[in-house]
């Protein structure tokens, strides 16, 4: 087994991307994800890759579009306000069915907000963010190790389904340091016969474009794309279930909120409260079946988030409102404490899940 190294979450993303064969990074600095760009700036020139600090986030995402069109693994990273700027490009990537990896280390918003952690870009990420009917695959790491694991998985999914995979992290996981093992078995990168690599006068030229002059054709493309999304929803949803089997109360949390919640669940279990945790690892596709199953026995669900309540809507949809769902959250760069979550669990237990 490879020896572990001590890394920041942001650095783990960058190293994992390089190991996954990404040789093109385009970005623009913004706290709290600048370590990704800094790492790439140091490493890419040494391995024959390209690191380019673009003049803006908009330029960077369009450079991603260009490299992806040429069939190469490519990524960009930013934090909340920067992702908003990239949204037009994200929509164009989707409309052109191009694979890409995009990282959002979320910070408090809206607007410039602050530089401390947040999860309030959940709607933006899971609903697409830009204009038009589309989705991105959204992966939510909750440890530095998972920052690496899901980056590699993200590249694989992006290539397989020809779409953008987004790592939806936050300032805390990006900045915290934990030991990481880079002991990966890599899948082969699939053939990309659609890539614009030059015809060499041997084939018809490929076109990568999101403009359709014929509305029937545009409708057909949209419908086909959503058929692909159905396959992804069926096959790729991921969640971690922790002590959920006999649970009367379910805590739903992803990313950093799940780390906090696990402490609270353990503390409440020690008091004899039947509580478990569902941690979505993919936010789109949302692990609906796991929640639907939990709703068969749970009396209450508590959604712990660093937002005013965004994932809570998907929890309600997945459970068809069969179980009451309440919110436990902090915003503006603040993180719920294990005590806050513990108290919410105890209160729910006291009311008998009513």
């Amino acid at each position, binding site marked *: 087994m490879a020896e572990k*190294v*001590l890394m920041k979450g942001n650095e783990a993303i960058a190293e994992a991307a390089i190991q996954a064969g990404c040789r093109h990074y385009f970005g623009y600095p913004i706290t*709290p994800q600048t370590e990704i760009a800094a790492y790439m700036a*140091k490493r890419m020139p040494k391995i024959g890759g390209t690191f380019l600090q673009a003049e803006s986030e908009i330029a960077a995402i369009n450079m991603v579009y260009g490299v992806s069109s040429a069939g190469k693994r490519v990524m960009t990273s930013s934090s909340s306000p920067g992702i908003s700027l990239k949204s037009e490009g994200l929509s164009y990537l989707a409309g052109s069915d191009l694979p890409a990896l995009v990282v959002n280390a979320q910070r408090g918003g809206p607007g410039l907000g602050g530089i401390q952690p947040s999860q309030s870009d959940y709607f933006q990420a899971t609903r697409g963010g830009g204009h038009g009917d589309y989705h991105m695959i959204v992966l939510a790491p909750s440890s530095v190790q998972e920052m690496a694991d899901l980056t590699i998985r993200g590249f694989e999914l992006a290539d397989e389904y020809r779409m953008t995979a987004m790592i939806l992290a936050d300032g805390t996981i990006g*900045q*915290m340091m934990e*030991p990481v093992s880079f002991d990966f078995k890599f899948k082969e990168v699939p053939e990309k016969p659609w890539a614009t690599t030059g015809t060499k006068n041997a084939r018809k030229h490929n076109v990568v474009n999101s403009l359709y002059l014929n509305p029937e054709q545009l409708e057909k493309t949209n419908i086909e794309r959503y058929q692909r999304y159905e396959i992804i929803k069926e096959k790729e949803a991921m969640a971690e279930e922790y002590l959920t089997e006999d649970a009367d109360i379910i805590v739903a949390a992803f990313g950093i909120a799940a780390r906090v919640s696990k402490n609270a669940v353990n503390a409440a279990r020690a008091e004899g409260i039947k509580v478990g945790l569902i941690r979505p690892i993919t936010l789109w596709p949302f692990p609906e079946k796991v929640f639907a199953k939990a709703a068969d026995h749970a009396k209450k669900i508590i959604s712990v988030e660093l937002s005013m309540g965004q994932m809570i809507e998907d929890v309600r949809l997945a459970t068809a409102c069969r179980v009451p769902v309440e919110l436990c959250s902090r915003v503006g*760069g603040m993180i719920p404490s294990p005590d806050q979550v513990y108290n919410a669990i105890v209160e729910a237990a006291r009311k008998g899940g009513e």
Partner: protein
Amino acid sequence: MNYKRITLLAGHYGSGKTNIAVNMALDLKKQQPNTAIADLDIVNPYYRTLDSRKELEEAGVRLIVSPYANTNLDIPALPQEMYAIVHDRTLHSVVDVGGDDRGALALGRLTPLLREENDYDLFMVINRYRPLTRDVQSILEVKQEIEEAGRLPFTGIINNSNLGAETTAQCVLDSMDFAYGVSEAAGLPLVMTTVEERLYDGLKGKIDHLFKMKLQARPVDWIR
């Protein structure tokens, strides 16, 4: 540890400078009543000496820190009082310099005064478990970059090799060849090897100049 009037800590980003600075300042305070810790980090807005404010103030260590550390104002601001380090010669201090050459830029403006008085140490903090500084050559590159940016040569090496919560005594022992290798290649003494308090007793006597550290409490320490 015999401290010069000013002890400066620099090194690769994330090598552990801030934790060491806080522990050193508390140690220095036991020898020198007039002690300060100065945070000159212009690189990282997260994880600052300010996280240890309570402990430092209770011990009577003066904090010289930008009023914008740990706030949402994300600018490379230096503390207004930073010249006290060089001008007030009754003051002993530990200075936490930001990571890499970019962090060491902030040092440059103090350099002429540091050289003139010549009662300082500039220690390079190393951790062989950090991904970009795992071999002697990479350390020497970072060393040269920092010395050029700060226009000041290092005077010693501090081995802070660790794997966070997964650090074992063996991890530290395994790092010693590396640390001595850096020391020899750089022509600088290995002045200290730093370990968490939980590992100290097991390593005492096995490693020279072992320094016991209490890890800084951070806002997210309860995240396990």
